[in-house]
């Protein structure tokens, strides 16, 4: 494999193992996740893209050591996104994702296994995951590590001969630490490494072409066959004495394609009475473009790798979000212990710094920088039984 074992991640694994061996005498109880059923309706609308659909999660404990879960998720996509309007083809399609998983109580640790299959008419992905979580130091610290393996099968509408593959791996390690009676923090590190066909078969880059009427022409994008990234995040929650909580998050990301990103988020949760919980949140994300990204290349095949994917451009986004949750405590509902009805709304402002809006047109390389707003809505019911 082109990107073989990462020395860092192997040392991490050994380090974690040694640490846990030393901590063995201090291991205490772990608890399986509670039985629940969640039915969510999600809807995204932004930049000409509309995606909506359900997400259903079911989780149930069997016996004393096992909890099983299953998830069914659909993205019904209708897109006339900027990519589709200007060069890629517009489409209407559906992505269906099914997952099953299990959590197993092994003495004082929890091992989780999962398998996911995602299907759309030109893309199939299978993912397998395993993770271990352990409480130590009198339950003040939880150490966890996970490994995810993915297999992608990429096709292309209108080209039955087209068939490509990509393999993905993720290693994750995290520590969650109770700091005081009112504060908990978590540090997470995740390294992702992909190899194979990593670009979008429909997307193109543009290059300066005086021979063309618009002043530019298109050619297919060319990506490296490997992509490795590292992300480190720190989160903390703080309990306010009148019963409310604050959330702070920061993540730093860097990868082998030259993308560097930072995001920071704040949240505030405010319960009201016995039944209501209100959440407000703000998130800011900023990233630097990939080394081989350009909105307009000077000529055809200007470099060995070419990308004009706005996700790899230099941009930032701000999100403002609000959630409301109402707890229903059914007295005579058969076997339901409690439930909640939830509504969540996020508004995301995307502002691109070096990706131009070609749908508006203008002088080549002076078209307005692309920007759009997105609405994200979630309505869901959660039941605990």
């Amino acid at each position, binding site marked *: 494999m082109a990107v073989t074992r990462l020395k860092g991640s192997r040392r991490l694994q050994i380090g974690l193992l040694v640490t846990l061996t030393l901590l063995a005498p201090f291991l205490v109880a772990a608890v399986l996740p509670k039985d629940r059923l969640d039915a969510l309706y999600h809807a995204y609308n932004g930049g000409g893209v509309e995606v909506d659909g359900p997400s259903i*999660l079911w989780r149930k404990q069997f016996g004393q050591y096992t909890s099983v879960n299953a998830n069914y998720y659909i993205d019904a996509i209708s897109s006339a996104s900027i990519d589709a309007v200007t060069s890629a083809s517009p489409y209407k399609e559906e992505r269906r994702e099914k997952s099953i998983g299990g959590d197993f109580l092994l003495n004082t640790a929890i091992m989780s296994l999962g398998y996911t299959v995602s299907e759309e008419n030109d893309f199939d992905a299978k993912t397998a995951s395993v993770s271990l979580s352990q409480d130590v130091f009198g339950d003040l610290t939880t150490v966890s590590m996970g490994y995810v393996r993915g297999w992608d099968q990429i096709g292309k509408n209108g080209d039955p001969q087209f068939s490509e593959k990509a393999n993905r791996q993720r290693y994750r390690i995290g520590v969650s630490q109770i700091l005081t009676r009112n504060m908990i923090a*978590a540090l997470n590190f995740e*390294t992702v490494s992909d190899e194979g066909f990593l670009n979008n078969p429909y997307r193109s880059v543009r290059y300066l072409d005086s021979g063309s009427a618009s002043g530019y022409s298109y050619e297919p994008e060319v990506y490296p066959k490997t992509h490795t990234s590292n992300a480190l995040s720190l989160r903390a929650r703080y*309990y306010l004495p009148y019963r409310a909580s604050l959330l702070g998050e920061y993540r730093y990301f860097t990868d082998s394609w030259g993308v560097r*990103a930072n995001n920071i988020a704040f949240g505030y949760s405010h319960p009201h009475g016995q039944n209501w919980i209100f959440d407000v949140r703000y998130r800011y994300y900023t*990233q630097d473009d990939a080394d081989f990204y350009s909105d307009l290349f000077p000529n055809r095949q200007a470099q060995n790798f070419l990308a004009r994917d706005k996700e*790899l451009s230099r941009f930032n986004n701000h999100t403002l979000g609000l959630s409301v949750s109402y707890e229903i405590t059914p007295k005579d509902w058969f076997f339901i212990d409690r439930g909640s009805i939830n509504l969540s709304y996020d508004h995301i402002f995307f502002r691109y710094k070096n990706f131009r809006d070609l749908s508006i047109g203008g002088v080549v390389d002076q078209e307005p920088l692309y920007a759009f707003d997105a609405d994200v809505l*979630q309505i869901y019911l959660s039941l605990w039984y």
Partner: protein
Amino acid sequence: MNTRLVIVFLVVILLSGCDIKPWVKPYQRSHLADPIMQFSRDPVSTAYINHVYEAREGARGAEGSQGGGCGCN
């Protein structure tokens, strides 16, 4: 950066010594046990919003939610 992380990790834990006593007593954990103190109260919602961001941003990983990635284009 990975190696340094591991070393810091180990040093912090080992230096604390094997005789560390939890400084927050188990019976003082009522606030921490409150659902509003969880990092993610609703796993389905959290997974969804993480997917919204990961599909539109260059960054991925360390969001804190468990389980396999989405593997979508």
